[in-house]
């Protein structure tokens, strides 16, 4: 029987939730990396036991963790502990770790000058690495993984996270000086790899917008035509939009769904043009968006009241589902709190499994992780009192 593993990143560590295919009884392990912010964990599609985790702290910076046994044990790639009793300078001591080293590529051969981007006050500000927001393992090779970072850039590792190289063509795009941070920082938070053409990658940045490469990351193009954002001087500018999240169904990689700061958007031409599908949502502000595993036109969002009041409208936690690819939305409420609920659901905190019926999962800033084993019709909490949830990823293990 298939089983489910949920990888939960929180403000104070990582948790792993597990259940068999019935998705009724759950085990909880953790906290892993207790006390650290775990922005994201994700398993390799090519090897589900290979999991990458982004561990960070305002004190100690960025650490990359890797598991090769489904999260039972962890290591820092390429950085095994010294043998007991070994001295500094000992020739047998391990080489210096590069797994935590995210340095923008300014080399003449492959990089771009470390230019500036727009700061909150409109002045120019130098790029500075803060943390890894999102890890996206390759679809085919467990040793290859992409990292979306703050300040916005895309890095790639081809050695299982032991070292990282920036794909500098993105940060070096001519529009870079016009990118600006959102409230949470200038982060690259979404990485989608086209399963049909893996050299085609989509990324999204708050607040620059969405970009696409056709050549594995060498060259990038903004794909923001059709977006309208009233909070920037030119609402239809080619960059500057606060994209919160993009989702894709693997069987239709040319169709993208976007939760923008305001507006739920759809593209049917790989992001070349977008049109709004907010329809009858009670609010089109929100963070996560995801697609049903077996119904490419079934989409889920979690509306929040507004960007200045980031909690559910009317204190009712409602997931909205559209079975028509947008426009027409239905509230999903059974099992979710329908009064006095003022949590947020962050952009990376929703995921789906691939069982039939499809399971939907999301975590809240209040520490709850909710699950639906029937496509959203009924919900139940798996855990209720975790630290604030930053990310949720699901692995369907067969």
């Amino acid at each position: 029987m298939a089983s489910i593993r949920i990888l939960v990143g929180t403000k104070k560590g990582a948790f792993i939730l597990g259940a068999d295919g019935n998705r009724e009884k759950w085990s909880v392990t953790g906290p892993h990396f207790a006390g650290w912010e775990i922005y994201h964990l994700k398993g390799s599609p090519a090897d589900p036991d290979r999991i990458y985790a982004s561990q960070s702290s305002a004190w100690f910076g960025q650490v990359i963790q890797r598991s090769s046994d489904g999260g039972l044990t962890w290591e820092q790639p390429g950085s095994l502990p010294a043998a007991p009793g070994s001295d500094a300078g000992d020739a047998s001591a391990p080489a210096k770790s590069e797994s935590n080293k995210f340095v923008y590529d300014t080399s003449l051969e492959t990089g771009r000058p470390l230019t500036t981007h727009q700061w909150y006050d409109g002045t120019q500000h130098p790029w500075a690495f803060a943390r890894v927001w999102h890890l996206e393992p390759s679809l085919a090779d467990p040793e290859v993984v992409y990292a979306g970072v703050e300040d916005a850039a895309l890095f790639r590792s081809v050695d299982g996270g032991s070292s990282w190289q920036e794909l500098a063509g993105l940060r070096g795009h001519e529009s870079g000086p016009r990118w600006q941070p959102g409230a949470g920082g200038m982060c690259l938070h979404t990485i989608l790899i086209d399963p049909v053409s893996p050299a085609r990658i989509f990324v999204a940045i708050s607040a620059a917008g969405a970009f696409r490469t056709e050549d594995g990351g060498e060259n990038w193009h903004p794909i923001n035509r059709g977006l309208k954002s009233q909070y920037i001087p030119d609402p239809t500018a080619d960059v500057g939009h606060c994209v919160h999240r993009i989702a894709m169904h693997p069987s239709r990689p040319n169709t993208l769904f976007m939760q923008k700061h305001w507006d739920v958007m759809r593209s049917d031409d790989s992001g070349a043009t977008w049109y709004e599908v907010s329809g009858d949502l009670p609010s089109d502000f929100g963070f996560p968006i995801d697609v049903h595993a077996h119904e490419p036109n079934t989409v889920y969002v979690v509306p929040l009241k507004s960007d200045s009041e980031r909690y559910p409208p009317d204190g009712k936690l409602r997931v909205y589902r559209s079975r028509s690819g947008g426009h027409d939305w239905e509230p999903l409420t059974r099992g979710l709190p329908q009064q006095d609920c003022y949590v947020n659901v962050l952009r990376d905190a929703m995921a789906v499994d691939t069982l039939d019926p499809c399971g939907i999962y999301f975590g809240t800033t209040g520490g709850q992780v909710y699950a639906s084993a029937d496509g959203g019709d009924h919900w139940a909490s798996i855990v209720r009192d975790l630290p604030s949830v930053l990310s949720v990823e699901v692995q369907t293990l067969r």
Partner: protein
Amino acid sequence: MIRVVLPQHLRTLARVDGEVALAVDAPVTQGAILDALETRYPVLCGTIRHHDTRQRRPMLRFFACRRDLSAESPEAPVPDSVASGEEPFFIVGAIAGG
């Protein structure tokens, strides 16, 4: 041997308990201590000072002999009692955050 006391999170990361003892050639400086620490525990690279600039991370401090040595030059010798192993070299995380 130089005695180094790490904050709890770095002890966990390096998988050590208690103090760390390091052999450091004279003259013993902050920079030499950190070089030795990172060589022994590569996972600590980047967690105490920046990978490239080697600057101390802003929310960490270096204490020894009841003095704050954080602003000292990395090339300045540490106090004799630290160099002799009589006193430990403390790496301390700022008391901040909720």
